[in-house]
């Protein structure tokens, strides 16, 4: 029954609440274009519907699909494999025959209509203007629009562009409405970036100047939710990566990876084999940089002086299973069997679940990368002496020499082994961060290995009472 999967254009993995956890670049980009994030709820409506259906009926399904990414129609064929509860309850997505074609709108008029409908639905502030662009009414849906409503109450009938700053437009106003349609703007009392849409209300028969306008203000980003956790006491500049650089660098990197991937997969047309290889190298390098960026941002958080973790009850067997579920696809690619020993609820630690999972994912993905194809990785949770519990991740790889064992948890140390899984993508920060996290939770991370005999990594944590 197993089909060769050499022509799968993109894979993805969702969890039990239909959040996309992992996605190959084309799928990740489509998710982003549809307004979603990674990880985040699957934002491609056509795929979300199929994923929900597959989960509901618990069967592997296969359907042709098409989706609009804002510019073009994306079409292909998607196979969805729902995974059992024990594997996390999500779905695996395999997209074949990825194809991009110009949006199949009957006319540019239909497309404009479609885009107008989107803007109307997503506008958070709507105003009615008269023919001279003076404000008649205002409707506000979001909290940060209240400032504009107040300003308007103080100056009824004002020219809208006197209330709302238009940084890109230097001319004295009022300008012709066509020049203002689509302009970036600043709403008083709001920190977000906004865009203005001016839609004329035409007199029947048309041909003359409009009777008035519908002014839609659309925010470029959602209103930030109040931070759930108290802000850590760190200096502003010490969070350079996490706050500023990561978001700024992520987008161009995603784009580089996506375009290189497009070239590699010859989606834009036939290409010489050598160039495909170069494109694959570019895509790999971009992915490596993106990974490094994540690690650096993480490192900054973990190394900050005020860093603390939660102390909740964590079922280590459950955490191990979740990590295995997330990495199942990668393991299957390399024909590596992942075994979790122990029953749920038998080994409980006092730690932060999210961080434990992060460490386990790091350990298991290392084990997958450094094991020979067709071997097995064993993950077991045990109770050790003096009130502690531990998870042990054991692989059948080449092992680590004694001198390297000493340096393995150092910053920028890259395990010193040759990854069997092709290009080595590590930043050399993963184990360093993992150990810092273990220490922050009152535990430890250690390794036992001899050359030629595989490696066992042990994450020790305080036991839950």
């Amino acid at each position, binding site marked *: *029954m197993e*089909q*060769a999967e*050499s*022509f799968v254009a993109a894979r993805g993995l969702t969890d039990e609440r239909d959040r996309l956890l992992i996605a190959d670049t084309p799928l990740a980009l489509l998710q982003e274009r549809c307004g979603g994030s990674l990880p985040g709820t699957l934002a491609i409506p056509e795929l979300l519907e199929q994923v929900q259906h*597959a989960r509901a*009926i*618990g*069967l*592997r*399904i*296969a*359907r*042709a699909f098409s989706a609009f990414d804002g510019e073009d129609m994306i*079409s*292909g*064929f998607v*196979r969805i*494999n729902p995974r059992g509860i024990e594997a996390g309850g999500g779905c695996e997505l395999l997209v*074949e*025959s990825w*194809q991009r074609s110009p949006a199949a709108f*009957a006319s540019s008029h239909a497309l404009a209509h479609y885009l107008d409908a989107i803007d109307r639905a997503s506008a958070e502030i709507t105003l009615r203007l008269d023919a001279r662009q003076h404000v008649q009414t205002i409707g506000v849906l979001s909290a940060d629009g209240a400032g504009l409503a107040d300003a308007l109450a103080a100056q009824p009938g004002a020219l809208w562009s006197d209330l709302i700053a238009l940084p890109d437009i230097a001319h004295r106003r009022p300008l012709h409405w066509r020049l203002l349609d689509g302009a970036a703007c600043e709403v008083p009392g709001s920190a977000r970036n906004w865009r203005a849409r001016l839609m004329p209300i035409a007199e029947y028969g048309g041909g003359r100047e409009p009777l008035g306008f519908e002014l839609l203000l659309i925010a470029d980003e959602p209103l930030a939710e109040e931070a759930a956790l108290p802000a850590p006491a760190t200096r502003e500049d010490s969070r350079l990566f996490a706050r500023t650089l990561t978001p700024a660098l992520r987008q161009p990197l995603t784009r580089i990876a996506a375009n290189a991937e497009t070239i590699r997969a010859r989606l834009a047309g036939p290409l010489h084999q050598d160039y495909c290889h170069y494109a694959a190298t570019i895509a790999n390098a971009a992915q490596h940089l993106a990974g490094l960026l994540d690690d650096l941002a993480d490192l900054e958080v973990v190394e900050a002086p005020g860093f603390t973790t939660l102390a909740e009850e964590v079922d280590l067997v459950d955490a191990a299973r979740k990590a295995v579920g997330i990495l199942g696809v990668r393991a299957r690619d390399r024909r590596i069997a992942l075994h979790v020993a122990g029953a749920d609820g038998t080994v409980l630690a006092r730690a932060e679940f999210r961080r434990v999972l992060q460490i386990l994912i790091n350990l298991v993905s290392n084990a997958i990368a450094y094991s020979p194809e067709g071997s097995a990785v064993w993950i077991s949770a045990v109770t050790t002496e003096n009130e502690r519990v531990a998870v042990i991740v054991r692989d059948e790889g080449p092992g680590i020499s004694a001198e390297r064992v000493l340096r393995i948890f150092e910053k920028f140390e890259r395990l010193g082994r040759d990854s069997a899984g092709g290009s080595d993508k590590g930043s050399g920060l993963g184990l360093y961060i993992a150990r810092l996290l273990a220490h922050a939770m009152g535990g430890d991370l250690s390794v036992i290995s001899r050359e030629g005999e595989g490696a066992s990594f042990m994450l020790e944590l305080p036991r839950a009472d």
Partner: protein
Amino acid sequence: MGTFSADHAAQLRPGHLLAAELARSQRAAVATLPVLRHLLASDGPSLVSEAVVARVRGMLRDLATQLHAGGRGLAAVSEHAAPEIDALVVQLGVHEALLAHIHTLALESQLAERFEQRLSLDPVLSPLLQELIASDDQAVAELAMNVLAAQTRFMQSQRRMELPLAELPADLFRTALQIGANRDQPGSPAGLAALMASYDEAATRLALLERLVVAMRRAVVACLAFDRAGLALFAQGLAALAGMERAGAIHACHEQQSPRLALGLRAAGLDLAGIERQMLLIAAPGGWLADIAEITPQQARARLGELDAIALERG
């Protein structure tokens, strides 16, 4: 399903049992003549011929037998299981979408055999499929190979009037399993669970055909040359290009449905000459064919949608 619960209620009041039974036999008697007349009158091609009915019945029975075996293999079915299998056949036949699907399969295999006689068009390996198997594009070649294997199995099982459970589309597969699980005498739940776990819609013949057509990308127009593509690929390509269901495309290839075929071809973007060429291969067009040129592809698509809506209302 409604009649079942009504009968059940009647059983609670014994006086009504006879009345209900009489009403049922009366309905059956009234329905006999139109059905008989239809079968007699359409000795030649008909959407419901005896051969099609026999195939539908055979496939329903095969599905029922597999459900009864519950994943244990057909050898496990004892000879004494016949009454239970009969009951399953009735329950499966009540489900309209399942019945429609099976009818379409019977029609497809019958049409394929007829085109083999008339146009010497192999029902399994058409010239286009042969070309696709030799394609430079590895994905297309691999899918085409899988389609060839699936199509061979399909024609073979049609001759034996069989239908493997795992060949059903996901929703119908689930329906069938639910019917199988709801029996008075539950089989092995583990067997049904194993059937569910091994099911993969992507491996069914219909999904493989769809995957192949999607993988062909713009070359899918090649499917619209009936004498090169063969019925299976033609219907799949027509469905993709005209925005119809594949079942609708199969039905459209029947002699009695030629206007619908013309409409479908128009919706797929063919011009009058192209439509005429295909129609001559598939079904003799009537004098109305020239009218097709007046309809734009968009209008044709809309008309097809209206026809489907009417069919749904009746259903």
